[in-house]
């Protein structure tokens, strides 16, 4: 059996990462790892994540699958983890190059926002002259800027206009207040809503349901029940789904392989995004009303495809 002890470390408590726990357990069982544990920092703080990672080193973990609390800020600690002889990779979100992470597997945040906006504009029957609004998370998160830019780009390419960006609404209370206030004032001026963070997506879906306006189209992000239900009921056009389970499962597998002596292929077909040139897409799909019911199956199939070809595509063993 392998002596690989994998730690899957999100940025903080968040429902998005819950699937990592099962993914780790399954991977540990399937690949005979010493363990693959889901370790959550007590809060969304860089310091808390760092302290957790340091304590995991002390506890003998030797493979780290880390969601970067900050694309640049987490580089330092990842480099130190690698310095202790461990394998480290960025999961779900990427570190900004250069870093010691072997690669980044997850969602290209910018691209996901870009694709989502395109879906939105398509649903509006083409973007020309359309007005959309963008609800997103904390500005201190560098990814937020990437999302804002990506939405802007997709809109301008299609001739649409982003008339307002409301950011810093990662907490439910302000999200509620601001989104509702916005809709109260501007509901009749806006054609579409793109949300690129979990909480705003949920809150906006509820708000649309409340005002009962199906004219305004919205594309959300992630797989919250409220959102999925709103898609089914037609209040939300669709959502950009990601694949946390696949990230955790394949990530644990890869980490173990790398510890067993495999190396990354020199010509591995990594993709590039705004942050890194060593990016592996764990699957980002748009799920409209037709897809929401079996999104789990479709994610599983993406995972399966990615997993089956992973070793041959990316690793030299």
């Amino acid at each position, binding site marked *: 059996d392998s002596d690989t002890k994998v730690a899957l470390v999100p940025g903080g408590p968040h429902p998005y990462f819950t699937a990592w726990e099962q993914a780790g357990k399954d991977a540990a069982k399937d690949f005979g790892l010493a363990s693959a544990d889901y370790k959550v920092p*007590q809060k969304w703080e*860089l310091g808390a994540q760092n302290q957790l990672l340091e304590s995991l080193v*002390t506890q003998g973990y030797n493979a780290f699958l880390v969601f970067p609390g900050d694309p640049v*800020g987490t580089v330092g600690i990842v480099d130190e983890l690698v310095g202790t002889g461990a394998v480290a990779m960025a999961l779900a979100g990427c570190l900004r190059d250069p870093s010691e992470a072997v690669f980044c597997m997850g969602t290209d945040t910018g691209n996901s926002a870009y694709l989502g906006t395109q879906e939105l504009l398509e649903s509006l029957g083409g973007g020309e002259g359309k007005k959309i609004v963008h609800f997103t998370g904390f500005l201190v998160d560098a990814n937020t800027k990437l999302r804002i830019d990506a939405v802007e780009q997709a809109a301008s390419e299609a001739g649409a206009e982003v008339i307002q960006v409301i950011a810093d609404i990662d907490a439910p209370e302000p999200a509620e207040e601001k989104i509702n206030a916005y809709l109260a004032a501007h509901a009749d001026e806006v054609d579409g809503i793109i949300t690129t963070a979990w909480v705003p997506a949920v809150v906006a879906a509820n708000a649309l349901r409340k005002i009962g306006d199906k004219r305004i189209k919205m594309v959300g992000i992630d797989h919250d029940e409220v959102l999925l239900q709103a898609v089914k009921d037609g209040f939300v056009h669709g959502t950009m789904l990601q694949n946390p389970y696949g990230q955790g499962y394949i990530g644990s597998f890869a980490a173990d392989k790398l510890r067993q002596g495999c190396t990354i292929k020199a010509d591995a077909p990594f993709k590039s995004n705004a942050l890194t040139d060593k990016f592996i897409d764990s699957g980002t799909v748009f799920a409209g009303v037709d897809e929401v019911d079996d999104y789990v199956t479709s994610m599983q199939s993406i995972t399966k495809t990615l997993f089956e070809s992973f070793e041959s595509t990316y690793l030299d063993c």
Partner: protein
Amino acid sequence: MNNFGSTQSPSQDVGILDDETSPAPGSGRLTQQLRRLLLSNEFGLLALIIIFSIIFAIVTPGFTSSFSLFAMGRTAAVNIIIGFSMMVVIVSGGLNLSVGSIGVCVAMGGGWLMQVAGFPWYLGVVGALALGAMIGALNGVLIVKTGLHSFIITLATMSIFFGVMIFLTQAGSFRELPPEYVTFGRMKINGVVSPLLIVTLVVGVILAVFFKLTTAGRRLLAAGANPDAAELSGIRVDRTIILCHAMSGVLAGIAGLMLVSRTGAAIPSMAGQLGQDWLLPAFLGPVLGGTLLTGGRASVLGTLLGAFLVTLLTTGLLLLQVGAFWVQTCLGLLLLAAVLIDLLRRSYLARHNLI
């Protein structure tokens, strides 16, 4: 005159008997001194640190490993300075909610000076700290000029400073910093001690001297304890308040720059949204260390030990592997247990020794 931290101050029940005017005979004096030491807040914290260290060393493997000690020292080093930056304002009877915000501004300023303006690291540090002093002093001036409570002023400026920073940087970071500056944060002296910890100790000594042995420090204490009396004694209370906010800015800046050196980059998110992540460590150290929230009393050593205790407890809990989601509950319980133990110790000593 209500105090927030009533029994955190031993003054109510502890007598001090230690110099020539004392009528007590020599041996009595010694025991009095010993009692005073045993009853002090600092001693209590030290005792707790030792007790918990022993417990953790026994039950958690790896607690005493050099990496663990190094990491703990480094984390504590920053938390202690953050605590200091709040302490100097608490002493004046005020608060500074913008410590985190200032810390990030200084860090980003330092990053800009080193990366964009091309300053050598020491000039970058000096320039950035000057920025911290200015921002802090601005807080002080606003408080003095408007006569509003520092709580509300720093609440507003927290938003303003942070907003200006995020607007100027557009949430971008500076990571091409001089290598000698960045290695500083990762260096290990003798394999266990982080140089950041040494910086912290030096700052601590300077602060202790400031409060004990300088006119300005004593004035600050007097103005914080009773502004009316201080004013009637000829102290310029306004200037003192501006001074302590400027100091707070510099200290927050030091903490920010330490984090930059540690992370290897100046990033806007290092203290969370609006710098709020720092609020907890900022208050924890001083309050546990016996600094009264109503002002007038500071304990540099107490703040240092208080911040260290919290770092120790957190590290220990993480190593104990209580289920990830329960760490916070346990931390709260441990904190409660720690202050209760300290209370018991004090009342036990008071009952059995002092009468």
